[in-house]
C-alpha cells in the first residue's frame, strides 16, 4: 500500500491506496508519528481508494485518533465505502472517529476546527 500525502492550509490529507490491513497500518502509524513531530494536528484520512479495512487497520485508525485527541488534534475519515462503514458501525468506531461522505466535507470540518482553535 502507498499513502499519498497532500496539504490544504494546515490540514494534512493522507490518501492510502490499497487495503488498510496489518502491514499497511504500520505505515500509516509511522506517517502520522512523523506529522505529529512537525506539529500537524489536523488530519484527513481519505479512504476513497481503500477497498477493505481489517481489524488491524481499524485498530490503527483508533490509535491515530487517540494520539491526535491527546494533543487536541482532530482526525476525520472521508469517503469510506459501504463495507468499511459497516465495520465502523458494528464496532461503534463511528462514535469515536468523525466520518464524512466527501473529502470536501471533511476538509471544511477540519478547517473550522483549526479556526476555532486559533481563535481561542
Amino acid at each position, binding site marked *: 500500500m502507498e499513502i499519498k500525502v497532500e496539504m490544504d492550509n494546515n490540514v494534512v490529507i493522507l490518501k492510502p491506496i490499497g487495503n488498510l490491513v*496489518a502491514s499497511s*497500518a504500520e505505515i500509516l*502509524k509511522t506517517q502520522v508519528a512523523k506529522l505529529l513531530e512537525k506539529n500537524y494536528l489536523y488530519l484527513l484520512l481519505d479512504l476513497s481508494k481503500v477497498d477493505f479495512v*481489517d*481489524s*488491524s487497520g*481499524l*485498530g*490503527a485508525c*483508533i*490509535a491515530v485518533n487517540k494520539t491526535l485527541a491527546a494533543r487536541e488534534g482532530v482526525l476525520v475519515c472521508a469517503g469510506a465505502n459501504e463495507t468499511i462503514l459497516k465495520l465502523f*458501525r*458494528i*464496532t*461503534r*468506531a463511528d*462514535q*469515536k472517529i468523525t466520518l464524512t461522505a466527501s473529502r470536501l466535507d471533511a476538509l471544511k470540518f477540519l478547517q473550522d476546527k483549526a479556526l476555532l482553535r486559533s481563535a481561542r
Partner: protein
Amino acid sequence: MNEGKCRILIVDDDPFVAELLAVILDADGYGVDMAENGQEALEKFDAAPDVGLIISDMNMPVMNGLELIRELRGRNGHVPVIILTGNSEISVAIQALKNGANDYLLKDENIQETILVAVDRVLEKHRLKMNNRLLTEDLARKNRELEKERALAHKVQESILPRSVAFPGFSAGTFYRPSDQIGGDFFDAWESDNHLHFLIGDISGHNTSAALLMAVCKGMFSSLGQSVHDPLAVVTAANRLLCPMLNDTEMFLTLVYISYDRESGIMRLLSAGHNTVYLVRGRDLIPFDSTGPAIGWDSDDTWEVLTEPVNPGDLLFLYTDGLIEAENDRGETFEGQLEETLTSFNAHPAEMVPRIFAALDGFCCGRFTDDITLLALRREEES
C-alpha cells in the same frame, strides 16, 4: 604465512611454473604447498583439507585438472579452484568452469602480475559465497525453530480452549481454526450458580500478540464470570482492566457474552462490536446485532444488554467474522449464504457445526485468511 592469509595448493607438472607461482604467493604472505598432478593434490587435500585455494594446471599425468575438480566437487569440497591454461586451450578452461572451477588464468608472460589479482578476486568471491551460505542456513534454522515454536503455541492455545462444551439440558458443537497455527479467536462456556455463561471473542490481528491477548482474555472473563452473572458488569470490568493494557497498541477485541438463567429460562446478551449472531427458532432466525463498542478503546464505554427467552429447541449460533468474510473466486462473501445455511441444517449442534464449516470450505475452496470459530448451543426439548 601471514595471519589471515590462507594456504594455497599449486598443482603443476611443470616445476618452473609451479616454483614461479610459489615464490610470488609466498612473497605476498600466503602459505604454499605443491603437487605434481591431480592425484597427489587430492592426497594432500585429503590429508589437510584446510587448503584455502587450489591453482591447478589442466594437462598433467596420472590425473588432469578436470578430473581433480570432479573429484573435489564429488567430495562436496567447496574449496575454490583456479585453472591455469594456455592461450590455445580456452575451450578446455571453459569446460573446467562448467565442471566447478571458479576462474581460469592464462599461462603467459603476464602471469606474475595477474596471479595475485586472480587469487584475491576468487578468494573474495568465495568468502562472500560462504557467508551467504551461512546466512541462508542460519535463516532456515531460525525459520524451523519459529515453526516449531508456532506449532507448540498452537497446541497450547488449543488446550486453553474448552475441549468440549456440555451442560445438562443443552447440546453443543464447537469449531476452532486459526488462520496460521495461532490466532486471536477464543470461546468459552461454564456454569455457575444456575447460570450458563457463553462467550465468543475475536482479538484484532492473528499474530503472536493476538494469541497472547486471547489467553489473557479467556482467563479474565471466566474468572470475572464465576460470581457475577450480569454481562454488563463482567464486560465493563474486563474493559477497564484491558484498556490500560492495550493503550498505545492498535489492538482491541470484539465479543459476544451471554448469561442464561436456568430458573427464568431467559438469556442476557451483550455484543461488544461483534458481528451479528443468531438464535435459531425452528425456521425463524432472530439476529442480535452489536450492542456497543469493541473492547479496549475507552474505559468509560458502556453497552446495551438484550434479553430473550431461550425456549426448548432454540439454538444459539455464535461465530467470528472469519466465517462471513471468507470469499469465493467471484469475490462474494459467505455472509450472503449464512442465514439460509443456518436454517437448512436441523441437526444436533455437534453435527451442524462441521456441516457449516464444510459448506464454507466448499464455498471459498479452502481459501481462509482469518481465524474461524463457531459455537452452537441448543436447549434440548424437555422429555
